[in-house]
């Protein structure tokens, strides 16, 4: 159980971040993250190569995300409206020394919301490779393994996603021309 706890501690944040960026709902992302770890721990004996654990975990996360998409296909897109409030709620549970200041909370929440807005504009196929390559800094080989696509397709989609993302955030950033 201790080993499982360590695995969760080491990967939960990354998996939660990936899922959150894909499903765009904090609550759903937390539930799906929990499912990912439960599934991973139940199926751990199927993992052939321990070194491939991280891509394998991401693949489970990706499958959970697409399952959630299929379930909610008929429903309207998930919207997270309560981000800052939830942050404040979570902050109540944190020890005082780790608690961010109100300004930091607002800035973080604003930045997070803006990033989510940009990511939301990308289709899931581009969003997943963009999040993995740019935000999680995974290698192309790992991304191919996670999404189950060819290197060429992954590279092309990363470039397309980058171009679209850059266009979307031009109003937030001042590029040096």
């Amino acid at each position, binding site marked *: 159980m201790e080993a499982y706890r360590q695995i969760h501690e080491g990967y*939960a944040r990354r998996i939660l*971040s990936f899922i959150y960026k894909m499903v765009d709902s904090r609550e759903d992302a937390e539930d799906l993250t929990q499912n990912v770890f*439960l599934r991973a721990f139940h199926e751990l004996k199927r993992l052939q190569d321990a070194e491939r654990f991280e891509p394998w975990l991401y693949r489970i996360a990706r499958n959970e995300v697409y399952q959630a998409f299929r379930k909610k296909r008929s429903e309207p897109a998930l919207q997270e409206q309560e981000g800052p409030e939830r942050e404040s709620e979570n902050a109540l549970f944190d020890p005082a020394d780790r608690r961010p200041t109100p300004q930091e909370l607002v800035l*973080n929440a604003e*930045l*997070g919301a803006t990033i989510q807005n940009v990511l939301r504009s990308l289709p899931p196929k581009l969003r997943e490779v963009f999040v993995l390559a740019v935000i999680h*800094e995974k290698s192309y080989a790992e991304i191919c393994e996670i999404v189950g696509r060819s290197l060429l397709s992954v590279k092309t989609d990363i470039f397309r996603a980058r*171009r679209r993302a*850059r266009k979307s955030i031009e109003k937030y950033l001042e590029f040096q021309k």
Partner: protein
Amino acid sequence: MKRVLTHPENFCSYLDRDTSDSGYEQIRTHLDECPRCREEVKGWESVDAWFRSGESSIEVPPFQWQRIAARLQEPEPAGLLVRLRTLLRPWKLTWNVALGSLVLAGMILGGLEYRRNAEEKQLLLAVTRYVAEEGARIRAEENPFRVAATSDNPFSKSQVSVESKR
């Protein structure tokens, strides 16, 4: 030089530090001597950095591990087949006898139905044959053209030819 600027996909490998790409070193060397491309790459890098900066706001909910641990300690839910078998186990003999009887009854009823169908088929064939034979007999008796072939028929072919010769 121009190609790098107009085709930013060329330096995606550079941005993602994909050293296995053959163009990586080429782009790196080119960037050392081209300020325009350096600026371009800087712009793309700032986009990446902007997206990464949002990562600090992601926090795992405080009691997630406890919930997972609690779920892991629960016995694994049995499959539908196992649950059904467990449910039926106390009446195993009864169910077996009932199932056996059902199969036997099915076989008997099926056999009877087959036999009845075969008999019906035989009867139908016999009736069809009888009707066909009877029809042929009646037609043979009542057909006027059969009479035309006899010698006392004035319309007989041979009679007509004799008359015309005369």
